[in-house]
């Protein structure tokens, strides 16, 4: 136990002894979706990371609350040979929850496993560039890349790159074993996951002794659970319309921040008439972003004009380029010679999509485009839209950080196939110079806005609520996580 951690605990216990009513050391966090399993290296569900990231599992690097890449299990790292390989210095006092020590061998195992042929890692692409991992000594590894890259530390901060132990790898799905400040206690399927403090944690001891993640899918139930005090915090509260009520209630504070979620009206670029840029532009001009943000999100969300997070330093505001202009939209449709257009609009479950979809349908009707709304479950959406590409329009929020690269994949569901853009992304992958990278990112944003690949709606806001007194929750969502390391109760 490190000194500051000890001190904190000591102070806390003194305070515990003196105060009649002690500060609480447990917390119940509400989540909308239950994860299918708890192995972040074997599934894509955001809900997995929202429980285990930084709490149970740690990677070599990690994201900070502002999205910056911070040291994790690696004390420090440095790119060598122009980014051809990296040297990572590991912490030496780290043990897994099962007692075994964390060493360079675990790094090799973890990264080899993620890259292997039968790997079920959902973000396999993050590791594609890794050629080999060399052990220099028990606390030093070298990661050699196929192509020089500046984004390795960023890639290794993802939840899919957390360090696992070979001994426990088969049971990660149901009994995760990591190096984090909390150890897994139990999972009452359908109800909650419980974590308890890891007293052997290498870093600063956390204030909480116990943390429960409760799964409440119904927004109403979430609201009543908060109101009834059954839940201490709901970091991603599913019903933005209730936020003002929480704000008005002295028992709660609302935490509104940003996420990495670019919410877009995705269009099937390979399907007529949406292969015609004029039709896509017409649709973009028909959309009144303000009405959507107001109507679907009750005012929460920032309009975007391209697929990029507004809080990113390289963001370009291109909202005006596809501003709300029904006349322009109609003119573009005439120009394209499109009449009597009926498009399918397939909507996944989140309320931004369902509500946004109804508003967009009404807005498109104004310029003479009819839509057939079909509400889908996620599984159906994945099957029909994402995999089958059987759709005209859909609304979805892309929540991976810095994911503009998806526009370089011609087989990606909206099927944007542009050689120039693909070239841009290729050079970005190998570019290590910061300024040059920024310039490339700006070009890329402009390019997909000009081509109007999709209609860019708004950046999803993180609308969280917490009981007054609960401190240290992340305000923004640079990655999907509920990092509880800094969370504590204050009177």
């Amino acid at each position: 136990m490190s000194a500051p951690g000890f001190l904190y605990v000591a102070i806390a216990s003194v305070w515990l002894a003196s105060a009649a009513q002690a500060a609480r050391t447990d917390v119940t966090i509400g989540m909308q979706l239950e994860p299918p399993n708890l192995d972040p290296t074997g599934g894509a569900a955001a809900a997995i990371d929202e429980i285990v990231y930084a709490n149970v599992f740690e990677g070599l690097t990690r994201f900070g609350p502002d999205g910056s890449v911070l040291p994790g299990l690696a004390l420090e790292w440095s790119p060598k040979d122009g980014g051809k390989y990296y040297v990572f210095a590991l912490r030496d006092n780290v043990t897994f929850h099962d007692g075994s020590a964390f060493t360079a061998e675990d790094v090799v195992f973890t990264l080899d496993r993620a890259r292997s042929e039968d790997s079920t890692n959902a973000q396999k692409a993050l590791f594609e560039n890794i050629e080999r991992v060399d052990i220099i000594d028990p606390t030093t590894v070298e990661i050699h890349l196929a192509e020089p890259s500046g984004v390795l530390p960023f890639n290794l901060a993802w939840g899919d790159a957390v360090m696992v132990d070979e001994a426990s790898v088969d049971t990660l799905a149901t009994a995760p074993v990591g190096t984090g400040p909390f150890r897994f206690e139990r999972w009452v399927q359908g109800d909650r996951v419980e974590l308890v403090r890891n007293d052997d944690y290498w870093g600063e001891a956390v204030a909480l002794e116990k943390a429960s993640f409760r799964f409440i899918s119904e927004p109403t139930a979430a609201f009543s659970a908060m109101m009834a005090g059954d839940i201490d915090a709901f970091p991603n509260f599913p019903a933005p319309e209730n936020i003002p009520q929480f704000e008005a209630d002295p028992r709660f504070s609302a935490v509104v921040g940003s996420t990495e979620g670019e919410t877009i009206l995705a269009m099937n670029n390979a399907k007529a008439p949406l292969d015609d840029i004029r039709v896509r532009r017409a649709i973009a001009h028909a959309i009144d972003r303000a009405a959507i943000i107001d109507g679907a999100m009750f005012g929460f969300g920032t309009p975007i004009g391209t697929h990029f997070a507004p809080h990113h330093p390289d963001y370009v505001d291109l909202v005006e380029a596809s501003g709300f202009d029904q006349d322009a939209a109609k003119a573009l449709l005439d120009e394209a010679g499109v009449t009597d257009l009926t498009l399918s609009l397939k909507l996944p479950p989140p309320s931004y999509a369902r509500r946004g979809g109804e508003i967009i349908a009404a807005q498109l009707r104004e310029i003479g485009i009819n839509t057939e709304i079909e509400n889908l479950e996620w599984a159906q959406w994945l099957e029909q839209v994402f995999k089958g590409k059987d759709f005209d329009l859909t609304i979805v929020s892309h929540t991976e950080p810095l994911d503009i690269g998806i526009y370089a994949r011609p087989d990606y569901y909206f099927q944007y196939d542009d050689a120039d853009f693909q070239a841009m992304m290729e050079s970005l992958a190998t570019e290590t110079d910061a300024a040059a990278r920024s310039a490339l990112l700006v070009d890329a944003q402009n390019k997909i806005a000009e081509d109007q690949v999709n209609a860019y709606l708004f950046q999803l806001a993180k609308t969280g609520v917490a009981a007054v007194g609960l401190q240290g929750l992340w305000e923004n969502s640079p990655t999907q996580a509920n990092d509880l390391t800094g969370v504590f109760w204050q009177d």
Partner: protein
Amino acid sequence: MRRTAAAIGVFLVALLVVMALLSLVWTPYDVTRLAIPDKLQTPGAAHWLGTDHFGRDILSMLMVGARTSISVALIAVGIGLGAGVPLGLLAASGAGGWIDEAVMRFNDLVFAFPALVIAILITAVYGPGAVNAMIAIGIFNVPVFARLTRGAALALWPREFVLAARVAGKGSLRISVEHILPNLSNLLIVQSTIQFSLGILAEAGLSYVGLGAQPPIPSWGRMLAESQTLITLSPHVAIFPGLAIVVSVLGLNLLGDTLRDKLDPRLTHER
């Protein structure tokens, strides 16, 4: 009290039907037009029942939603009658035979399945929508009517007027149509009313979980689902669709009871 109940029932059902029919030609506002700046207005002169989270007029939505509820429930009853009554007549005319046995086992089988789960499965296979909701609800009406028809028909077959028809040389199909069916009509009308009101409830339930009519077609269940989070903020948005369901089902049940009192021959001797 009985009279009052009958009057209330007739009035409520008439109200429901008039609202639905009127919505075909006129609603106070267009329900497909969103007016987000007008959202969540409380009931007043402009909007008698207020507006929802998209600024749509709730009264207009309820009127059009009545149409959805009625058509789904009506067709579901139709499916039940259309398939169940012939099955029941067939089973009864060959009572004890293999057809009868097969029909009864089929009934047992359908009854053994949890209805809502199967409805969800159906919509998972064929996609959500009003038509699939009708089918999902309708399927579970089939054994209800089949069983009712069989039971009542079995009681009629040994009756002397049926024997008289057999003495007159009529075949079982002809007897089923000429003699059995007309004498079941009251029973079927009463049961249809009950299934109709259950259909409205079921449609609301399915829409509530998102498996009923899809937007922009308004449906009461979905209105309830969408307004749930607003119930503390703007209670009227959640209360009116709920009341619409309660009032319609109440009306239909009262009407059903009245019809039963008037039509069901088993009860006539009692009063």
